[in-house]
């Protein structure tokens, strides 16, 4: 028995927590089928932070929703902790672009909402809710309603809500893209601090190159039309990360490489139906600017 334990550990470490194999998603409309995701294969290890990066409409959110069990893949399989994903599961925490809080409930009650839905004992999670709220810097706002909070604060509440039932995996769908640039930077730092305390496996969808590079262990670039995974790149920056990382030469180079990859795919992907000019520098720059914002 004793000899088996380390083996089991090794296999657990080696088996990816999330494993998507040749996943496809096609929406059938009246005119013609739309291939949201042509083919995507992705492994995410336990505790890893992986960003799905790409321009709007590249199917990254669709892939995330399929991992969440909110959408069914047309083909391919998604395994989560060794089991196929067929429907939504309780061990997932999701954060959407909007905070989607209940407007009549206080911060504390919104954070406890999943506990109610999952019919878990509220009393056991009350302390955890308070410490999460404190962790994200909302101490003193426990009894405020969402209408009294700023956009950034509401998204912090949503993060607490996603973490309250201690899910194995955190899925974030462009969580900060509705926030202003300054708040967004603050939220990025806040998120990496939160994850230092509450270690989670995270899949993070974004169209901001900087955000993806700053937060992730790995950045997966999606693009082209029909959309596929075109780059899977490890982020070499040490943790814990703070703003200063973004000022390094290395960070700039990584961002540049990600940008060029997206541009290349963008060139013969989204623009293909217009004109096949690939190396027009002016066009490439404007495309890159629109991606970086």
């Amino acid at each position, binding site marked *: 028995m004793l000899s088996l334990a380390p083996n089991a550990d090794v296999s657990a470490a080696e088996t990816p927590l999330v494993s998507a194999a040749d996943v496809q998603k096609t929406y059938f409309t009246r005119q013609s089928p739309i291939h949201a995701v042509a083919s995507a294969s992705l492994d995410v290890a336990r505790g890893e932070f992986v960003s799905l990066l790409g321009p709007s409409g590249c199917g990254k959110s669709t892939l995330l929703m399929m991992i*969440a*069990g*909110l959408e069914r893949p047309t083909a391919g399989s998604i395994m989560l902790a060794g089991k196929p994903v067929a*429907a*939504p*599961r*309780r061990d*997932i925490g*999701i954060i*959407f*672009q*909007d*905070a*989607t*809080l*209940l*407007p*009549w*409930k*206080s911060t*504390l*009650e919104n954070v*406890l*909402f*999943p506990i*109610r*839905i*999952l019919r878990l004992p*509220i009393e056991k999670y009350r302390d955890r809710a308070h410490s999460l709220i404190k962790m994200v810097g909302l101490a003193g706002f426990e*009894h405020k*309603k*969402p*209408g*009294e909070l700023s956009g950034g604060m*509401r998204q912090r509440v949503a993060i607490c809500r996603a973490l309250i039932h201690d899910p194995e995996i955190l899925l974030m769908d462009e969580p900060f893209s509705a926030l202003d640039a300054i708040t967004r930077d603050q939220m990025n730092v806040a998120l990496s601090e939160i994850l230092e305390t509450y270690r989670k496996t995270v899949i993070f969808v974004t169209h901001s190159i900087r955000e993806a590079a700053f937060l992730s262990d790995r950045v997966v670039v999606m693009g082209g039309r029909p959309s596929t995974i075109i780059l899977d790149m490890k982020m070499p920056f040490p943790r814990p990360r703070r703003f200063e990382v973004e000022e390094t030469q290395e960070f700039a180079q990584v961002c540049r490489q990600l940008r060029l990859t997206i541009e290349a795919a963008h060139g013969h992907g989204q623009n293909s139906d217009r004109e096949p000019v690939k190396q027009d520098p002016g066009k490439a720059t404007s495309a890159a600017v629109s991606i970086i914002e």
Partner: protein
Amino acid sequence: MAKATIGTETGAALPASGASRFQGAASLSSIVLPLGLAFIVLAAWQLYVTIWQVPSVILPSPVSIAKYIVARYDILLMHAVPTTLESAAGFLFALLLGVAIAIVITYSDMAREALYPNLIFFQLIPKIALAPLFIIWLGVGSQSRIAFSVFIAFFPVVIATTAGFLSVDRGILRLCRSLTATEWQVFTSVRFPMALPHIFSGMKIAITLAIIGVIIGEFITAQAGLGYLIIFATARADTEVSMAAIVVLCICGLLLYGLVALAETVANRFYSADSR
């Protein structure tokens, strides 16, 4: 403030604290101004009747109406009770029926497609014209008046409640789905509280319509009730009595409306309260 809390979109901020500084002054003027205006109108009425010596059959003075109400409150009360009770009953049935139809419309596409156009068409019927038929169908008792009251009052509840149920943020529904929430959980913890402000605005329209329904019923056939009293007094050219009955009717309506508003406050408090 509780009124504003429920149903405010996540983006909408509550009144800022700066506004509360003027709240004392605002609430004072919100009492003084309407009362002042009412007083001026009544005084002008009284003056007009006194100066031109308008006969009481044409237009009794406010003072004489008030005197009649004070002197014969027993008769007025006797007639007010059935009208108020029947209105309340009509309103409650209209509420139940309206919410039930709204639930069916919300959850069944087929029912929505079948029901909705017919409901609108139904709405276009001049419903007052149907009041005599209710007497034929249900007799001269209070059941026909209550039924007519329900018939006239349920529609705004259906419209408002359906709008409320369908106003739920799709993101919140997706969140519920990701948490494996049952349809019942979604209804009780999201859809229903989300729809409450809509339901209450529908209820506020319904309560006034319910009273109208009962009064019309009483106009047609009744042995008691304020509508009966109005018709009876008018037939005898006793304008003072019928005016007094109208005043009492307003008070009864205000009372019922107040109860709805109170229920709204209680419901808001219940849903926005933190659990202990």
